[in-house]
């Protein structure tokens, strides 16, 4: 079956400059694709192309297997967009939730029923009669999502719908959205700069950096095996160090890094120079004087703590073990183990947690 939406060789230019380049990207029916990337990466531009609101200068956009032509109204009525700002129009909350249906000529009674059902689904039915300009940011965003879901689109496009909200509001709305996506099974493209949101909602993740689609794949593939250093840094790999493969045996590679030897799964591309990527949550810290625990971790590195910085319930710990290794541990562990700059520690990392990129 053809994908619901497919982009091929798409280039969008503004002022003679390429602002978006997507060689190939597709979204299958029923799939939730998260497009992640830093601010200004071209995510909203990509979403406008997907919403058929922006015609790329080059390349092809296919909807349900058919190339999208100049007249997009018929296709646009099969999708729905919810943007970063809710952009409600004058009138009641119910009018707004029913707007997409009204634009499609759905009879008044029917559209009110459907709009009301979706307002209920997003917990704002009680506000139905209220003027739309008398809502809080979180309420307005809920109405905006209800409005998009109410048209029962074949393709739902969400542009950072949570970015303007406070933490508590965001968490709850995220839960509600996850539930609605699961319940409807609607094909969705979801743009965000927040990796946690992407992990929570998406079946697949596409990474956009500097206007170019860098990688698309399962969340595990993108977060565990980023294709380049910029993607790695964006998806939360904090340690990226240059190393040299000194031996490959039984599918395992021994890599010399800053005076240490690390064991990793041998990369398919057998270059001699590599860059080793380590996610901070994959590093386990223990005290060196303790008996080394019976552990399957292949890498045990001795080093000195150089920095401890609290971050919520966790702390980011930097260890100098011939290279700077970043680990995250709970603040409870920091206290119990007495982790502070100067403390001697041992860090263990499983061979499977190391990701190798080709070296320069």
């Amino acid at each position, binding site marked *: 079956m053809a994908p619901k939406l497919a982009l091929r060789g798409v280039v969008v230019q503004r002022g003679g400059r390429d602002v978006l380049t997507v060689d190939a990207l597709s979204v299958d029916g029923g799939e939730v694709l998260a497009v992640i990337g830093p601010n200004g990466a071209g995510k909203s531009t990509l979403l*406008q192309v997907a*919403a058929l*609101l922006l015609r790329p200068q080059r390349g092809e956009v296919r909807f349900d297997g058919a190339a999208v032509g100049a007249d997009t*109204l018929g296709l*646009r*009525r099969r*999708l*729905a*967009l919810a*943007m*970063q*700002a809710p*952009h409600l*129009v*004058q009138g009641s909350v119910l009018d707004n939730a029913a*707007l*997409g249906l009204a*634009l*499609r000529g759905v009879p008044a009674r029917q559209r009110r029923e459907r709009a009301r059902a979706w307002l209920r689904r997003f917990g704002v039915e009680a506000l139905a009669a209220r003027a739309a300009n008398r809502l809080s940011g979180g309420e307005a965003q809920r109405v905006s999502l209800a*409005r*998009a879901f109410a*048209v029962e689109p074949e393709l739902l*496009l969400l542009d950072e719908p949570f970015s303007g909200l406070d933490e508590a509001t965001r968490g709850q709305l995220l839960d509600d959205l996850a539930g609605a996506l699961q319940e409807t099974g609607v094909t969705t493209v979801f743009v965000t700069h927040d990796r946690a949101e992407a992990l929570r909602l998406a079946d697949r993740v596409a990474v956009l950096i500097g206007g170019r689609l860098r990688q698309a794949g399962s969340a595990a593939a993108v977060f565990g095996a980023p294709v380049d250093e910029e993607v790695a840094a964006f998806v939360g790999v904090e340690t990226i160090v240059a190393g040299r493969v000194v031996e490959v045996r039984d599918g395992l590679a021994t890599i010399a890094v800053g005076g240490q030897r690390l064991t990793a799964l041998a990369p398919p591309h057998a270059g001699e120079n590599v860059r080793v990527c380590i996610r901070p949550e994959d590093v386990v810290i223990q005290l060196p004087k303790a008996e080394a625990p019976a552990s399957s971790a292949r890498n045990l590195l001795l080093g000195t703590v150089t920095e401890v910085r609290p971050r919520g319930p966790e702390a980011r710990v930097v260890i100098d073990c011939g290279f700077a290794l970043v680990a995250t541990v709970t603040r409870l562990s920091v206290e119990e183990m007495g982790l502070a700059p100067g403390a001697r520690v041992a860090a263990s990392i499983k061979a499977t947690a190391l990701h190798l990129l080709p070296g320069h």
Partner: protein
Amino acid sequence: MGLIWDGLREAVELLSRGDRALYSTAARSLYVSGVATLVSLALGVLAGAFLAFQRFRGRALALAFVNTGMGLPPVVVGLVVAIMLWRSGPLGDLHLIYTVWAMVLAQAVLTFPIVTGFTAAALAAQPPELRLQLLGLGASRWQALWLLLKEARLPLLAAVMAAFGAAVSEVGASMMVGGNIAGETRVLTTAVVLETSRGEFAPAIALSIILLLLVFAVNLVLTGVQLRGR
């Protein structure tokens, strides 16, 4: 001082007596300027939307023309419309010169740039993403325009007030293309000019009071609509 006082007293008398000629002149003013405002509203909103959303070569020049047009001298408009409608002019066969329709045309030309300029500014002041959001919900271009105009209704009502005010208060164009014919093309402003030139200050004052009341009443209604729509 006596001149003003006598004039005012006589004016109140004329008004309270319900002078037929006086009130039919007022009704004609309301009719001519009202129709002219509606015509320029219909065309000016479309032109304003075009200027606000379409990117084309010469757009800046077009906007500059419109902004200049917002201060168009009525006598210049009167001259151009008179030449067009003159018996030997390009539209002479329509036999419109010295009719109320010639006056409607002149006032519509006069107020068209006002409505166009206000509309373009009001639409451009909306967040650009709002239009994308509406299109992204399945709006056709016309549906999106209608919704955006509804969002911009407050500045658009200001445009209507400004256009009506300009139309009902101009005198030069109406005089030139209407001819100030009693009972046919005489409106409040041309009547004031005539009475004043004759030294008949009392009717001139009475007519002026009616003119002011008329403008005030129309603006009161429109302001009420504007406040309710907030």
